[in-house]
């Protein structure tokens, strides 16, 4: 009896709150949970985007970034999945990492746990070789990997990330075999490449943009050339159909009130045409590619499928 009264009250309160939200959202600060520590790539994206989202939400909206680091972002994203879907808790979302974690370990969230707002950054993969390796073109690289299976060592930032999937795509496409050397993070991998300790590396364009003189950058995994390195040919120009990258965006818990979702997605959509925002992102080496709402959800599903396919064939732990 008491329980049902309590229940009814809660539902009633939620409905009233929902109705009020429709007109007034946001009426208090919105928390943005970043699953990494302050100063990391994802954190910088969130903090750079925050003032622009505030601007487009209008009415003195305020976004507060909260860092919840740990377990490669898993702790933060789980907190987002479990938060109240009232529009006052958003979170950053990394692909394919967040989806790969639902496959390679037990996670308390899944692709269905979120309302997809917008992907903001798409940092495409590049293949680089060390100066000492003597490999300067894709054809040379593939030839070497086919002639001596496993002889080419590949430095990358981790297993189960975008660089790993990129390598799997390359191996499948060219029927070659490489030896993976997973460093902890891309900067150590890049340093090992510069020192010639590994022959080849898979990184992201933002990570090699200022090191192009110290490494051989063979190509970029995009459909069109990147503004970050306009002279760098895409892989498809060189006859290899490879498109892959690391993505970062924003999600909210599943079940967001529709009008709140619409308001947020509309705010994120406007980022695309904002010159000031694009300049700020370029300054922090974040290649922007805004994909909002349903398209973002489809993108996430595609990356889940890719991760699952790779996992089924070659599980990495």
């Amino acid at each position, binding site marked *: 009896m008491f329980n049902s009264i309590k229940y009814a009250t809660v539902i009633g309160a939620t409905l009233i709150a929902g109705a009020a939200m429709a007109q007034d959202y946001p009426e208090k600060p919105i928390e943005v949970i970043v699953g990494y*520590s302050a100063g990391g790539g994802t954190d910088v994206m969130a903090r750079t985007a925050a003032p622009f989202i505030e601007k487009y939400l209008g009415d003195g909206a305020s976004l507060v970034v909260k860092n919840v680091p740990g377990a490669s972002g898993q702790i933060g994203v789980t907190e987002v999945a479990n938060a109240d879907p009232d529009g006052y808790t958003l979170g950053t979302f990394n692909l394919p990492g967040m989806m790969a974690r639902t496959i390679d370990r037990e996670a308390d969230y899944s692709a269905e746990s979120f309302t997809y707002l917008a992907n903001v950054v798409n940092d495409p993969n590049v293949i680089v070789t060390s100066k000492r390796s003597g490999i300067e073109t894709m054809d040379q690289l593939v030839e070497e990997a086919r002639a001596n299976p496993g002889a080419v060592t590949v430095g990358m930032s981790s297993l189960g990330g975008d660089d790993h999937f990129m390598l799997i795509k390359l191996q499948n496409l060219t029927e070659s075999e490489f030896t993976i050397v997973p460093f902890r993070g891309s900067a150590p991998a890049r340093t090992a490449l510069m*020192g010639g300790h590994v022959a080849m590396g898979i990184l992201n364009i933002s990570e090699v943009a200022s090191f192009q*003189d110290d490494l051989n950058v063979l190509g970029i995994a995009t459909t069109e050339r990147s503004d970050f390195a306009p002279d760098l040919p895409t892989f498809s120009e060189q006859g290899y159909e490879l498109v892959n990258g690391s993505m970062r965006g924003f999600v909210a818990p599943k079940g967001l009130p529709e009008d709140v979702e619409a308001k947020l997605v509309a705010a994120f959509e406007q980022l695309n045409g904002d010159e000031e925002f694009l300049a700020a992102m370029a300054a922090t080496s974040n290649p922007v590619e805004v994909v909002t709402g349903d398209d973002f959800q489809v993108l996430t599903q595609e990356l889940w499928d890719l991760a699952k396919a790779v996992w089924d064939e070659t599980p990495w732990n």
Partner: protein
Amino acid sequence: MYSDLLHALPEVFGLTNFFAVIIGVVAGIVVGAMPGLSATMAISVLVPFTFGLEPLVALGLMAGIYNGAMYGGAIPAVLLRIPGTPAAVATTFDGYPMAQKGQGGFALQVAVVSSSIGGIASAFALMLLAPPLSKVTLLFGPSEVFWVAVFGLASIIFLLGGNPIKGLISACFGVFVSVIGSDPIYGNDRFTFGQLELLDGINMVILLVGLYALPPVIDLLETPLKTDGIGKSQLGTEPIWKTLPRMKHFWKTWLRSSFIGIWIGILPGAGGSMAAFMSYNEARRASKNPEAWGEGEPEGVAAAETANNADTASALIPALTLGIPGTAVAAVMLGGLLVHGLQPGPMLFRDNPDIVFGFMWQFLFGAILLVLLGGSLATNSFARLLNLPRPLLGSIIIVLMLIGVYSIHGRMFDVYMMLGFGAVGWVMDKLKFPLPPVVLGLILGGFAEENLRLALRIGRGDWMVLFSNVTSLVIVALTVAVIVGPILKKKFARPKTQDAT
């Protein structure tokens, strides 16, 4: 490049920029002096706020905090045997015995002067030699770094104390703790019992606070009425210019320890504690009366404190040029740079010379200011803490420990873990197990494992990859010398001593 260096100077002396360094140094000393609060934590708290600050104000604060905290850690290390920061563990070895002998004031003065000298040497290395030294970093791939870790582990021998078996058990405990968390290559869980909080491994500060700070605090509370014999009157504080002549003969230690600190700084991953341990060992080996070490030898304090400040600026050499931080603090500072759109790499020096070189100057001035700000005034005010009733002092420290550990990730889990380590530390202390090998085991165990496995992957399972180049072989030779040297010395020295008796 050197003209860029001079060009950046006027900016550094801008009122707010210079003020930022001063505030940073003072805040750093305070943070460092509080057990549980570390430079890493202070700077990570600061990073989000720096979005709204001018780059040189933000960077000046960070440079100041880093320098200040590396010295501040020595204050409780000397007065209470509680290292304020991970890097101050080696300072307790001789600093605390000095304080018990009534030379606490002198120990702190040695610490502040040595810290400052180490910091200045490091800043010069960063300013003048960053590009060539970053080439040295490139020489160190996984197999070379593995050998550096082995070299560090070998130095545990000197920390074993009277009972080698107990010392080795301590070291093994440290290595075991380093295994907890996700596997460095495949990411499988190891001893995490399904706890997400354990996936990233056990934070060094949590272990250190529990293991090192809790037992002395329990000791304070156990004997509430005991007087330490190191009250203000007996602290032996003289003005610093009067004690300086007594430090003149440390110059060799200062030089050697600065060199070690800078070298450890440019290698990624090791950090201030390893620098301090290594330089303490080397200074003791070079000393004429090594048996006095551990009993209150001022030179031991000088060695440890010089080295842990000498790796501050040099840890930024690989951070700025290659994007790989030399220490945990440098990693957080890198975040502070990214926030301002300062991407590490060769372009950084070309695109933002005023900021980068200004930052380097700030490191230098931070190190110099250390003597002025951390001198008699600061040490006296901290030393006064010792006049507090022991239960009150103990309670204050416990509160600081709880706040510090909680604020690392903002979760109670870490606090419980710290208390657990505290219980372990208390038992170890009572059973006379030495604690320093635990810390070295934790730092170097994980470091050695990860790099060994990466090296073996590069060699595709062939162990010869570990001996395949000159750099590796040189470090192997050094390691052998460190282990075998003392044994041989003992063997050849024995007949002589027998003759004498």
